[in-house]
């Protein structure tokens, strides 16, 4: 019961926040010089002010700003993200076309970075815990530091040069082989191959953060008294590590996992550009260059909504990991 009221409250707040973000996005975007009318007119070589004026009227840009804002917010409340005049299709359609590609990339890099990072971090902390094979800890930490310090775009380019150009093991760009027209498993395997390089490029940085985070959190928990209690019960080192160290170290990891998931668009723009991945990041980049306001606002709104949704998921995850948060306001 406490949970449903918690959830209802958070969802209600989240909706308000989304609306506020929509308004803010709308106003911020107007601070950039130029508008879609002038860009379109410029591209078609027309300098006739009358033509630009006509375009403005058609896009509703001649209205006062507050009126445009109200109109826009009204649209959003009705679930209408607007129409991209540039592409001559509804914004929602463009976004839905591109969203799966981005989600796939995000999901695979999330799983890879979390799995590898937490796994290596645990390994690193355990060898310290048992005071054996300390070199393994140094090795993992060095590796993590290198991944942490290497710029994303450079790493991506180097991987393309090594694995695609030199070794010819993996495709360098796109999501599917062009014109192959594959079906079923062949298509899945084709996409998986295309996924490897962008996933790795996107994962390595986050992986190194997870390694450091997991290791630090576990080492902090190791210092706590209840770990000594575990030994005093006659548990083995492995049991203590699993039940009393790792589980208690989960909280900061969950926090960061939430942050990472919230980065859907930010990291994707760069990687999607380098690997020509047909995702939402590319869509946003193009919309920005073309001053396609409606599309840009739509992408912003969807990405903000994802961030908020993942934050909410993180908070829910907290409640499962830590009974102190679950019970807050409950007993006592």
């Amino acid at each position: 019961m406490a949970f449903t009221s918690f959830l209802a409250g958070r969802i209600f707040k989240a909706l308000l926040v989304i609306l506020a973000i929509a308004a803010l996005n709308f106003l911020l975007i107007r601070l950039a010089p130029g508008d879609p009318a002038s860009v379109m007119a410029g591209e078609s070589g027309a300098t006739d002010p009358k033509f630009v004026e006509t375009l403005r009227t058609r896009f509703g840009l001649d209205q006062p700003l507050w009126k445009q804002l109200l109109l826009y917010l009204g649209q959003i409340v009705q679930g209408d993200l607007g129409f991209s005049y540039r592409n001559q299709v509804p914004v929602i359609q463009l976004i839905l076309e591109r969203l799966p590609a981005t989600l796939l990339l995000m999901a695979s890099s999330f799983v890879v970075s979390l799995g590898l990072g937490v796994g290596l971090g645990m390994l690193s902390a355990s060898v310290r815990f048992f005071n054996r094979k300390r070199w393994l800890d140094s090795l993992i930490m060095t590796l993590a530091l290198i991944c942490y310090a290497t710029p994303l775009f450079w790493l991506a380019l180097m991987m393309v040069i090594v694995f695609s150009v030199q070794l010819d093991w993996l495709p360098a760009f796109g999501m599917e082989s062009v014109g192959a027209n594959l079906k079923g498993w062949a298509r899945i395997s084709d996409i998986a191959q295309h996924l490897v390089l962008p996933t790795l490029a996107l994962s390595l940085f986050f992986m190194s953060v997870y390694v450091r985070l997991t290791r630090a959190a576990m080492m902090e928990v190791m210092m706590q008294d209840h770990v000594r209690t575990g030994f005093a019960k006659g548990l083995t080192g492995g049991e203590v590590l699993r039940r009393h160290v790792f589980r208690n170290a989960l909280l900061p990891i969950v926090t960061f996992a939430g942050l990472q998931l919230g980065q859907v668009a930010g990291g994707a723009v760069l990687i999607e550009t380098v690997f020509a991945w047909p995702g939402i990041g590319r869509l946003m980049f193009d919309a920005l260059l073309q001053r396609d306001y409606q599309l840009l606002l739509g992408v912003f709104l969807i990405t903000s909504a994802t961030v908020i949704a993942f934050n909410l998921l993180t908070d829910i995850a907290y409640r499962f990991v830590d009974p102190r948060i679950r019970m807050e306001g409950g007993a006592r």
Partner: protein
Amino acid sequence: MSMAEPVVSIENLSIALPIGGDRAHAVEDVSFKVMPGEIVCVVGESGSGKSVAASTLMGLLPHGLKIASGKVIFAGEDLAHASEARLRALRGREVSMIFQEPLSALNPLIRVGDQITELLNAHGAYPGKAGRARILELFGYVGLPEPERLIEAYPFQMSGGQRQRVVIAMALALEPKLILADEPTTALDVTTQAQVLDLLRRIRDERGTAILFVTHDFGVVADIADRVLVMERGRLVEAGTVEDVLQRPQHPYTKKLIAAVPHLDPAALPPPSEEVVLSVEKVGKTFRSGGGWFRKARHVKAVDGANFTVKRGETLGIIGESGSGKSTLGRSILRLIEPDAGRILFAGRDLTSIPRGEFRSERQHLQMVFQDPLSSLNPRKRVMTILMDGPLAHGISRAEAERRAAELIRLVGLEPAALERFPHEFSGGQRQRIGIARALMLEPAVIVADEPVSALDVSVQAQVLELFNDLQRRLRLAMVFITHDLRVAAQLCHSIAVMQRGVIVEYGPTAEIFADPQHAYTRQLFAAVPGRAFDLSRQQHSA
């Protein structure tokens, strides 16, 4: 019993410290025995090696420490050379442990019942349903209310005393021969402490369990020990029955420690003047927590209708257990916490009516000494800077501030060279002296001291209490001294106010309240002070 085999016998044990420590051995050439059904107290100040000596019995030495020589004989077996697997089989089954901090000793994320089940499973005892029955039986035995409900509770849902009972239940689960109790009551309130000591005595009497009890508190020793071991810097300096050691101490260190324990009868203090400096009238503070759009806020009356006055040269003790609101009241006087009811009159002016911005200049008259001298001093600043920050902020010239700093550092008993050093270069007692000097830099009329001696060893505590009395004689301050320790209050305070759940339940001259406490709660507090019998005998000796 003298013919019985000892449960454990430690022979010439030395434990090496890592190279570069302040001494070569954490424990040096220590020998002692613990007999069945006996409580042996190991007493010493911090760093005496008492906890390290005890932890060898579990084979759980802190990292970096190694047994250099000697034997730990348990049931005919030398644990100093036992394998890790053998030690693991003993831990929890034959030897178990009770820790100082019952909150951190339990895993915060696991239900307490499951934490004990884990112990039973580790030794293959009480499988399946029998485990739950055993835990319920233990919870009943250690006096936990509603075992059926508490078995499902998380540690944070319990009080400190309940948590310590859970830890004790866990220690008893497999009927060990020996329980190591490392300062098991230090983190508890006095009334809870008295109950836990009772429980431990009962365990000794009814189950014949031997208990090795590590403590720094001679009051506790007097109440619970059969025999006493006194440790100083890793060596065992005195051992004997509790009567011998407490009544007829032989070693100078033991004598010094016992002399440092504050007496429970009020000391004669120079009388205060008639001038009322601070007057607190019906002060209240309510905390609101939780509360959102869908939840009702919870209200806690931390302080409710507090009244008292402090005269020049008077020390008022605010006595209470944790959560009684004594710290909130102390901080309210300085408006470090904004009180939401009542008046605080300082030199005739109501401090609560002064706007926040203007209050800053009043701060120089009201200063605070904090409990933890380490965390209340900025670790990255030299003592000189720490002392001068206040005066400089209040527009006193640098030369004048330096003069005062030099004067005060001597007044609190430190060398002037101390001004150039950083807080971490000092011992706990010295840091508290710096904290006191810092509070005095602005020549305040009122000092609020919040548990300033509770983190200190007993001999250092005695010195700092002496400093407080000395300062009070010289400077004639109006002092509010917050403490949970009636012994400390007896030595320092002209009058005391006893707080329970936010309310001052008794207020009056120290001598009167100590002679004849009126309120039931005050009587309960007095009854719970450890070592009362020991005090009576001390009085007879000194008389």
